């Protein structure tokens, strides 16, 4: 049992912190968890990390990787990026590169992996549809093979990066007659292909996501990832990477640190908040719940780093607890503020720049996104405890 990072790991952490101190700007900072690479500034920031070889850590050299690295390097990198509200290196590596390396054809690996590791191309994950949310395997968008090309028709929804992505990593139905989990395939689609229409959907905190419509979009069959009709397996495997690579506990810890700093200074109705016994007890309870999240996170990362083990259950536990704690945290903090809590962000009188309003509204997203709290509970109950369906 050892909860200490090694000298080497601590040295890397300091290097990342120094990089962030040098390169991070207010333009890059994102209120969103895992800020998107949707602006030039944010892309440049990540390219600078790529130039340092930080995107290539742990990936094989023949595809532009840096070879063996410290197992916790990617975790430490993302941890620090999350703390700084900087763009993270999540889905491009966690989902696309990992899946391509495990299941992709040789030409796909050679074509895409080196360019991702240099941050030359951006991706949108396109799984969700109007009728395929929590029941993701119900995706209906058809891909019909016509000669050497698939022809795609249908709609994707909540495709967050679609408006700036170069490629879409897309789940399509290739066998409508098979059971729903066995008729899905994964395709790489050029985001600018003829027949694709992207329309914005604005989320509750004013960030953009998208509906994407496909009208006879033609995709070369070489863009099929792995085997036809095995897409569901690849998607669920990668959701595990997503659950722990993209949902670090660092943002929640940062919010607690900021809350504590605020409570130490704040006065409500003329009285110092930090001396109110009710407030003190609330802060303590939040700190306990967040400590548990930090521990689940570390445990998951340790297991993932210890070998070929895929921490499917641990990632679901992480995901579940993260969703619960984010909601409780934002809710309790707004309660401390009284009516000042509902002032919109950047409003003059808003405590903590009104960031907690965003946190509160956005916590709901964390309860539902990428297989949310309730789906995570189903996974734990059925896969881990063996309860019957």
């Amino acid at each position, binding site marked *: *049992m*050892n*909860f*200490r*990072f*090694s000298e080497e*790991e601590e040295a890397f952490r300091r290097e990342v912190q120094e990089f962030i101190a040098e390169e991070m700007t207010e333009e890059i900072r994102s209120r969103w968890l895992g800020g998107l690479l949707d602006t030039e500034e944010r892309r440049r920031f990540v390219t600078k990390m790529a130039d340092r070889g930080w995107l290539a850590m742990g990936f094989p050299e023949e595809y532009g990787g840096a070879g063996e690295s410290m197992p*916790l390097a990617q975790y430490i990198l993302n941890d620090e990026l999350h703390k700084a509200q900087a763009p993270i290196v999540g889905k491009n590596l966690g989902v696309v590169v990992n899946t391509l390396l495990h299941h992709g054809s040789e030409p796909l690996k050679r074509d895409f992996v080196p360019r991702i590791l240099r941050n030359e191309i951006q991706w949108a994950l396109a799984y969700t549809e109007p009728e395929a949310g929590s029941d993701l395997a119900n995706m209906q968008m058809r891909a019909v093979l016509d000669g050497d090309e698939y022809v795609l028709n249908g709609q994707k929804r909540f495709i967050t990066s679609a408006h700036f992505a170069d490629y879409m990593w897309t789940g399509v139905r290739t066998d409508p007659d098979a059971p729903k989990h066995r008729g899905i395939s994964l395709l790489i689609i050029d985001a600018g292909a003829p027949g694709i229409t992207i329309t914005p959907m604005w989320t509750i905190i004013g960030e953009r996501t998208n509906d994407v419509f496909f009208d006879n979009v033609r995709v070369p069959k070489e863009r099929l990832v792995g085997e036809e009709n095995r897409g569901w397996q690849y998607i669920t495997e990668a959701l595990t990477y997503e659950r722990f690579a993209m949902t670090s506990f660092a943002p929640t810890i940062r919010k607690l640190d900021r809350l*504590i700093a605020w*409570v*130490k200074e704040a006065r409500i109705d003329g009285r110092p908040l*930090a001396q109110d*016994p009710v407030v*003190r*007890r609330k*802060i*303590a*309870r939040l*700190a*306990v*719940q967040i*400590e*548990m*999240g930090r*521990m*689940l996170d*570390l*445990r998951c*990362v*340790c*297991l993932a*780093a*210890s070998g070929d083990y895929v921490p499917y259950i*641990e990632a679901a*536990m992480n995901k*579940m*607890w993260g969703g619960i704690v984010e909601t409780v945290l934002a809710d309790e903090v707004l309660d401390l503020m009284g009516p000042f809590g509902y002032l919109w962000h950047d409003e003059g009188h808003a405590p903590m720049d009104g960031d907690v309003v965003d946190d509160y509204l956005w916590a709901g997203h964390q309860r539902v996104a990428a297989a949310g709290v*309730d789906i*995570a*509970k*189903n*996974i*734990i*109950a*059925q896969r*881990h*405890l*063996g*309860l*019957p*369906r």
Partner: protein
Amino acid sequence: MDMEYTEEQRQLMAAARRFMESECPPSLVREMESSDLGFSPGMWQKMADLGWLGLPFPQAYGGYGLGCVDLVVLAKELGRALCPSPYLPAVVLAGGAIASAGSEEQRRAYLPRIISGELVVAFAFQEATTAYDPSGVALRATETPEGYYLNGAKMFVEFAGAADRFLVVARADGSDGVTMFLVDAKAPGIRLTPLRTMARDKQYEVTFDGVAVAKEDVVGPVGGAWPLLEPVVHRGVIALCAYMVGASERIQELATDFAKQRVQFGRPIGSFQAIQHYLAQMVTEIVGAETTTLYAAWTLDEGLPAREAVAKAKVLAGDTFKQASAVGAQIYGGIGFDESTDATLFLRRGKQYQLSMGHSGYWEEVLAAELLDR
């Protein structure tokens, strides 16, 4: 960063699990609830023979010199079986206090006999307050030419009826801090009053009415015991956390098995999401409480400032066991409240242990002080 147990820790875990399964079934737990002593001297002797009573003590006194993480491994197994024993108060706390603060003579006189199971020393610390620190200690020690007279009352003293000695934390006249004394359990002026508890364990109010103690039975510096005792208390609290994690794990397993077998509405109730989601959250909280407890134990073993980690572990493990025991009984439905169902053994302990050794409100204030007042 490494969250694996060592080979030795895995062996200890497996041996303790086997021992508890054969020696400490729920029937024994029930039997001890209605016994006078509250634990089985036969089982206690076997635990001593296995070396477990020596686990935290230095090898020079016959112990194994193991750390708090090892203690967590053992205490978790005791908790799985709801093992009734004086392990926490007599070995970890009273024994720990002697090992930490006692003179060489006191260590030689007491530790080998604690380790062999010959001597039970009860830990008389808490009084009629909720605090689990010196702020709650008012019992007076008045100095005389020969030693001290003790006057006052202790509460929640576990296994006082089975004790040979008391380790008493008192306030000596003229000094600011607290002082520890070893007192013969049969000394004149000591009176025991049993306290009936939800868990039906053996706790007492112990009053000291002019109890004479010799100078050589002072343990550690007069007025300066707390800096030496606080890390011992922390280890005791973490052992309780581990016990609660083990007990939570067991009630979760029992409730999960029950949910797979119990049929209502023509289906096993474990197929209903209402039940599945209770159990999924429960098992996640147990893993979280276990890891948080291990982190605090590791912090203590490393000699790092541990108050914050201990407070977090106690609140979390307390919440976890209380909730697991309550939801566990609920999953059993009506029979979860039938006295003869094992789930009730857990239900009666879950809330009690959350309130023991500093309730959540106490540790939350300790934590708030660490976070907000520095």
